[in-house]
């Protein structure tokens, strides 16, 4: 028992490996949030009138709203007036090649292991790197252009493709949707925009790396992905953040629109600063992600590996509007120390013969709390709807908690819905088996947990799968169930 306790402590003491900060001069909006802040951000970004109007509408709506208190998480009240809502790295001229990128930023990326030029040459991944709200470099733009694909920062999209932005912005997640999406709509700084025209299959995986840098700056990303009829795209989002003491708020919004026969696959690896071993600091990750299968036979698939953040509050959802459309959700959520995660998905079946699959794997260690909260709704006209949900929880140590809150709302007799959930710990016999074969306990746990998450990792693109596996191993160092 004592060795067990020791190893658990060791595990609990594993420090955030990728915590560092880069000193960059930042251009800050005045502290606090008023209509003026919203106007300041909009002016700073030279936005068209319609967007400012939309932001202000969202801001006014946000003022009427109350912070949600239903998630199974605890945190001190956030003072929304005590934060900066805009920070941009000072050097901001348009860059044509990677050489023009600020060497300090380059170095940061190198530390993260995503050296841009290497990525460009070797991996064939177009990277839209976002550092504190403003895109600093975009690669592979030209090649994508050949196919008519638009992949750029949100601010650029606002200037170059205002019609598209106007048409789709807020169409999946309206600013009235919830407290944090309203906040995001009012003050979002930047993000990514992706448009795949009719019949085009995106030749490469699109990727954005997010980082939060300036202290005390909430980052409000806005991502919009539109896949026209028959188009298909795989989109990667991955993040790490430097070590900071003060909690940072992150309230992003991701919207996906899939037209007839379109396919969108959205993968996330999230490893933001989770706070230290005493639960101090760490990032609040309050994200609204939703996709809509507008046309028949469309498919949207979410895959997420959540290992970071002090608090995660995130429900990537799919609205299955078109007949025969498909929604998928694969998730691994790992919490350690005092981390809290309340995450899951919503599958709303509106069209006929729509199908959805939910696979969720929760791992809790230390003193963390991990909740799965999911909704499967089958509307009255969604005959032939089919859902399968499985949510498993793994507990490591006896101070953590695992929770499941599935909601099933079925209004059609033709629907077939199955939900199952299990909670277990790592079997002593499994560890013993590994020990016998010369694998030490630490590695055995890594092995078992990776096996436990296999179903989800299989859904990740190659590069991410490797990264995700490493991430879990790092996070689980020294843990014994």
């Amino acid at each position, binding site marked *: 028992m004592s060795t067990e306790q020791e190893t658990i402590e060791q595990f609990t003491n594993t420090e955030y490996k990728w915590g560092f900060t880069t000193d960059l001069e930042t251009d800050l909006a005045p502290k606090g949030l008023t209509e003026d802040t919203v106007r300041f951000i909009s002016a700073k970004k030279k936005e068209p009138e319609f967007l400012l109007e939309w932001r202000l509408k969202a801001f006014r709506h946000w003022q009427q709203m109350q912070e949600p208190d239903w998630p199974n998480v605890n945190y001190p009240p956030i003072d929304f007036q005590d934060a900066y809502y805009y920070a941009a790295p000072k050097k901001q001229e348009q860059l044509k090649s990677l050489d023009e990128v600020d060497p300090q930023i380059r170095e940061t990326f190198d530390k993260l292991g995503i050296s841009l030029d290497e990525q460009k040459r070797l991996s064939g991944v177009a990277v839209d790197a976002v550092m504190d709200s403003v895109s600093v470099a975009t690669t592979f733009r030209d090649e994508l252009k050949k196919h008519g694909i638009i992949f750029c920062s949100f601010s650029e999209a606002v200037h170059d493709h205002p019609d598209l932005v106007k048409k789709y912005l807020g169409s999946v997640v309206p600013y009235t949707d919830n407290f944090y999406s309203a906040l995001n709509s009012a003050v979002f700084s930047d993000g990514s925009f992706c448009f795949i025209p009719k019949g085009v299959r995106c030749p490469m995986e699109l990727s954005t790396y997010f980082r939060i840098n300036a202290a005390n700056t909430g980052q409000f990303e806005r991502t919009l992905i539109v896949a026209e009829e028959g188009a298909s795209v795989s989109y990667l989002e991955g993040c790490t953040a430097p070590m900071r003491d003060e909690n940072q708020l992150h309230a992003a919004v991701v919207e996906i629109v899939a037209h007839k026969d379109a396919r969108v696959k959205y993968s996330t690896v999230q490893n933001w600063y989770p706070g230290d071993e005493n639960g101090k600091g760490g990032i609040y990750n309050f994200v609204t992600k939703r996709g809509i299968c507008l046309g028949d036979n469309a498919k949207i698939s979410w895959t997420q590996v959540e290992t970071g953040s002090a608090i995660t509050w995130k429900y990537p959802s799919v609205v299955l509007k078109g007949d025969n459309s498909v929604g998928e959700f694969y998730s691994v959520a790992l919490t350690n120390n005092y981390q809290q995660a309340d995450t899951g998905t919503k599958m709303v079946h509106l069209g006929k013969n729509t199908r959805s699959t939910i696979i969720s794997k929760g791992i809790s260690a230390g003193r963390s709390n991990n909740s799965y909260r999911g909704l499967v709704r089958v509307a009255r006209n969604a005959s032939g709807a089919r859902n399968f949900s499985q949510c498993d929880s793994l507990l490591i140590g006896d101070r953590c908690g695992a929770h499941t*809150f599935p909601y099933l*709302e079925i209004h059609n*007799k033709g629907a*077939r819905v199955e939900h199952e*959930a299990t909670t277990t710990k790592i079997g002593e016999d499994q560890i013993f088996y590994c020990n016998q074969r010369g694998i030490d306990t630490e590695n055995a746990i890594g092995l078992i947990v990776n096996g436990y998450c296999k179903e989800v990792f299989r859904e990740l693109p190659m590069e991410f799968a490797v990264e995700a596996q490493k991430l879990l191993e790092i996070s689980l160092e020294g843990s014994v169930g």
Partner: protein
Amino acid sequence: MKQQESKFQDAVDWYISGFAAFEENLNGGSQLPFHKLRKKAVKKLSENGFPGPRDEEWKYTSVAPILGQAFGLPDAPATESSLEIAPLTFEDADRNLLVFVNGSFSKGLSRLTSQAEGVVVCTLSEALQNHADLVNASLGLFTDIGTGGFTALNTAFAAEGTFIHVPDNVELTDVIHIVHIAEPAKPFVVHPRNLFVFGDNTRASLIETFHGQGPGSYFTNLVSEFIVGDNARVDHLKIQQESTEAFHVSNVNVQQKRDSVFSAVNVDLGGALVRNDVNVELAAEHCETHLFGFYLGSGKQHIDNHTFVDHAMAHCFSNELYKGILDGQSKGVFNGKILVRQDAQKTNALQSNKTLLLTDDASINAKPQLEIFADDVKCTHGATIGQLDDEALFYLRARGISEEMAGAMLRHAFISDVLEGIKLDAVRQNLDAQIIERFTDVKSDS
């Protein structure tokens, strides 16, 4: 904490306004210690009101239809009821029978044929007078009047019900059957309050049935408390067959002690709006709990089953199986929560909820919940929602069985494993026959 605005203020005012008159009619009952709890409950009710749609536990069940009517307490019966009781009993299985008509105990219809030494089986009003020590030691101990509104309402107006006390080392060989009959001449509300105390090493089996006679609206607001002693075995069967205009809210609270076994079967066949809460606390090691339930909804019925299994201590086992068949425009709600506390290592908890939807107008909202704080546990839950298997139907049809009959057979087969949970043969067969009858002629309303 945010101050919650008072909910359904009119209904709260209406019920509280009746409290003074109720107090006067207690004939000195207001001097008993229990009356303090009543007053506390009134206070809680006025503070908290009734649950609204924003209460997570009442998300899918609107209580507005219940509170929209001003139900008064029923008039005291002038004469003994002339009801024929035989059809409502299970023949020789019922040697101990307590009958309540419109909330009042009917001596003429009841019979108590067998009682071991020291066993107390009587009405709550009698117990409050004659067994005050036994009652006061336990009444209201495990029922939270702070939540839900209806529990506070029951506690405030609790005057009648059943009290059972089985002393240590006594095994009751005969079943105790409690019958609640409603004959609504005019709309009324009853607040039956039961307290069942089972000592160590006891064994008992209880049946509680609710019947509505004739048309008319009324409201049954039941609270039962079970205290299950060390190594005791208690079976509880509740069959709810209220009239189709009736409201039924029940709150069953169970506390189990070491090595005890509690099994409950909850059957819902009637009622317009039904809400059942079963809360079981496994308060010591090596407890075993079995919760079974099934509900048949048709017409515009709304049936809501909530269960809460609280694993407070280690080495316990709980098993839960609820099944529902929803026809017509009926709505079903299932909310099953399993909580495993930090000390409850080596817990084994199972839960399963299965629902058949027979029409597009029927709907089910299911929420199976797990909250786990201990690592060395095995907990699973499953929920499925579907329809009758076409292939099985075809198989039966191919063998010359009418479509109606085939459907009835499949539905019957669907709930048979819950019926198996009823251990008394006579009772199970009787219920089985009723259900088959219902399946073969329920077609007309779908």
